[in-house]
């Protein structure tokens, strides 16, 4: 295998390979995508572990993400500072969790976090309302939004505490076999 790249040390590449679902080639390809977002900010040499963080606006302008209604939440969930500004590690992690090789439990975990707008580890009614508004372009009436959220909680809240916990969410995911293919961003 040709070892011609000079961006990462072999140990770094091995670490990335072990911690994500990507192969060497894909990691390099993703690195170049990251680099092309801001060529003047991202150095071509990561052997010294530079601390480079791309602002959310650049991440959110990627063609894979720019039309996704949840792009801001996705970036916030996967970024270290919680604001959407991503380092290369966060970037790789994000696409690894959203790739087709990630297992269902991992995807369910991250999907749960994405839909949990107020970060309280529960999807409560306000989170559902925000999700609904993002998905329907704010065109449902207040009443309709309320009714849909109530229906959702009715259907999937197993332990009857009025909000969705991670297990409720995972239980719902198990019953939706399409989830693995829809919660998937190709890059």
């Amino acid at each position, binding site marked *: 295998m040709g070892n011609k790249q000079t961006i990462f040390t072999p140990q770094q590449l091995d670490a990335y390979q072990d911690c994500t679902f990507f192969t060497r080639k894909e990691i390099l390809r993703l690195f170049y995508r990251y680099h092309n977002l801001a060529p003047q900010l991202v150095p071509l040499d990561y052997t010294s572990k530079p601390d480079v963080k791309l602002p959310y606006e650049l991440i959110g302008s990627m063609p894979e993400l720019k039309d996704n209604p949840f792009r801001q939440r996705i970036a916030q969930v996967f970024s270290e500072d919680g604001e959407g500004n991503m380092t290369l590690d966060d970037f790789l992690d994000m696409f690894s969790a959203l790739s087709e090789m990630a297992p269902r439990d991992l995807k369910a975990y991250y999907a749960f976090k994405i839909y949990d707008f107020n970060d309280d580890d529960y999807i409560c009614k306000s989170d559902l309302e925000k999700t609904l508004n993002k998905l329907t372009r704010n065109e449902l009436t207040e009443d309709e939004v309320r009714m849909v959220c109530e229906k959702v909680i009715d259907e999937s809240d197993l332990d009857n505490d009025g909000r969705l916990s991670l297990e409720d969410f995972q239980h719902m995911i198990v019953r939706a*076999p399409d989830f693995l293919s829809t919660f998937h961003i190709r890059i």
Partner: protein
Amino acid sequence: MLPLHVGGGDWLRGQGSWRSPDSIPMVPLSSQYGNRAWQLNHEPDNSQIRINLPKDSSTFRHEEQPPGTLRMGVTSMRRRGTLKTGLLPGGNVALEKIGLTEEDVRDEIMSEEQDLVKELVTMSTRECIQAIRDLPMCMEDKKNIRNQVLASKSSKKGFLLTCSADCSEQISLSLRRCGVGLSSARQAVRLWQGTMKEIGGRFGTSVLSYFSFLKWLLMFNTISFLVNFGFITIPQLVQTSGRSPDVRFTGLELITGAGYFNQTVMYYGGYINGTKDSDFKYNMQLAYFFTIAAYLVLCGVSLIYSMARSFRRNFVLSDLSSGSAWRLLCSWDFSMVNERAVRQRKNNLRVQLKESLSEMMQTNFLPVSERMKQLGIHLCTWVVSAGLAAGSCAAIYYLCQYNLQQIKVSQNPGNLKEEASTLLLPFVVSLFNLVIPLLYSLLSKVENYSNPRFQIYVIILRNVFLKMSILSILCFHWVNNVTTNVPMCWESYVGQDLYRLVIVNFFFSIFGSFFGEFLRRIIGTRCMPSIGIPEFDIATNVLDLIYAQTLTWYLSSNYASVCIHVYLITFGIFTIRLFTSSHICPLFFLFRIGIYFSPLLPLIQMIKLFLLFYLKKVSLNRNCQPPRRSGRAAQMQTIYIALLFFPSFVGALSLVAYTVWCLTPSDSCGPFQGLNTTFEAVSLWMEDTAIISEFSWAVWIYSHMIKSELFFFLLALIFLVLIYFFWQITQGRKMLIILLKEQIINEGKDKAFLLEKLRTFQNLSLVPYHAENVHGPQYFERTYQTESDYSEGYQRGACPEEDTPPFASSALMQAMMARRQAEEEDEEY
């Protein structure tokens, strides 16, 4: 320190045990239906802080995990950025209020991490890497854990000889790199990766499922082609090299498949059982028979396997009601990247939600007259569709009879006009296959189905019924009339018929897509804008694929077209512009039937599928919009495979079996000349081997097991008994699932109640209380004094309030506070 144990521990599981609402996210729930072997299972036994409860008899034990599962102690996953921005909002001040310091919490987290590392070290490298990849942590933490694991692994190995340890380390590392390189090479070769991404991005996953089905069929046919080509065609080509056919080649053979190709390896008739003069002896009879048999068995096994797996994944575990919860939270397609598609998808979702809401609000009571009217309409449409199918069958049968009579009457077999007239039958068949499904979809618009998925199923059912009935009429005609009435090689005649069907069908699919989608788009946008742009009709397209595959399975006995199809492709490519029609369907069935009469048909099919992919893609991009209803793609996939198996494969298999067992092969051509039935070849071979004493066991097996009916009867009986046992087990499991669901609800209530009690304790902590109150298990009994007491605790648990610091309500904090208090009391005493 007072250990307090949780009964069952189930309310801890998956909640990620001790965590504050802000800092520590949850552990993924270990689900026994996870698709990875690595499941993060929460074991309360390893936790350091536990609350003791008398074990209730209804507490359930978690099902035994398969060996090798990662069993972790209390695991808390750090939220990204937690350590950098501080553990908790409100910082140290808030923590002091409840008597803890930030270091305490940090220590807690560290010790959990140590447990995790210890678990990981005990696993093999590959499993360890898999487990690390599955951790829901940020990259830095994962790398951290990985380094710790590697360090402790290498320190463990330090006791052995360093040299051998180094070597083995290097070897395993290079092996892993090799494996990774192989998988990346495999990915590079993956066909149509970019195109699939583009289609998925623009049209969603359900349309993509059609194209992945197509790709799957292509791979399937590649394998069958290789098998057939290797074992049947090559020996035949070797044997007959040097012979040249007597008839001249004219261009019409490309389409009619007769004439010049009659005597080549394309058809069954071109094969002989001769042997060369040299010592190369190849029993073509047995090779032909066994290759086809093995191929069909292989098909059957792989279909059953994928059907069962798909069924289990998509039907058994899934809820059949398409509820709002699913629609809101699980159905959004993250891979869509086209702005217009996203906007449309949002519109569709909004419309669907509104519909479901209005259904909810409307009472379901339709007046009796309305329901009768609905029923009447349904009945009428079914009668009409059945009538259409029957009518087309009758027409085709009469046409077949007419054709046969023409052959009997005809004097000059090489007449061009007569050969062209043989094309009439395939033309009519394909025309019916094109027009009648359109009529069916018109009919379904007249009907009013409440459930859109039900509508799709009805359409599929009608189409399948139509196609299967047409094909069964054709098969009936071939098997009954052709074998006795045709003067020449009847197998070749059938092969030619099938070949013509396949070719004409292919042409129809090309032009049909032109009419189907291009014109509809023109009409929809220019002339009658109310209709709009057509959607990509997934169901009909997939049915076409299945139909064609079925034909191949029956036809491939005649190698009708290696060369032929190559010519055809170049000829066809010029006419290919736009595609998409629901006409690839007949090709499948034709393909499946054909494998006995034309062994090279898989190659034709491969080339067709390959072309079809690009044609459909172009038409899709130009003419269609994404489907309005985001259907359950995974369930549809199961249904397609099931359709591929049941009517299609089983039908073709039974037809081939009938041909082999009961029909007399023709006297003048083919490798089975002179035998009474094709199967006689095997009997003769068995008689020959009976002479050789070493193989007497084989002969015994043949005569006592394969030929005897009693053996199969007993086998069937045993299988029936097994099926009954498994059915009973399934019933038991269903009961268990219901019980478990009730358990979950109960445990949730328990948790809320206990949290409330803990909070009350914290509020009373200023008042010294007796030790028994803490130690005594009776306090924690699940006997609720009053209903209101219970419900109050339950409510409070659901919505934590105000006064206390925001995280104090969490189980982690409360338990740590309880531990702190217990320690203080111990010191007092």
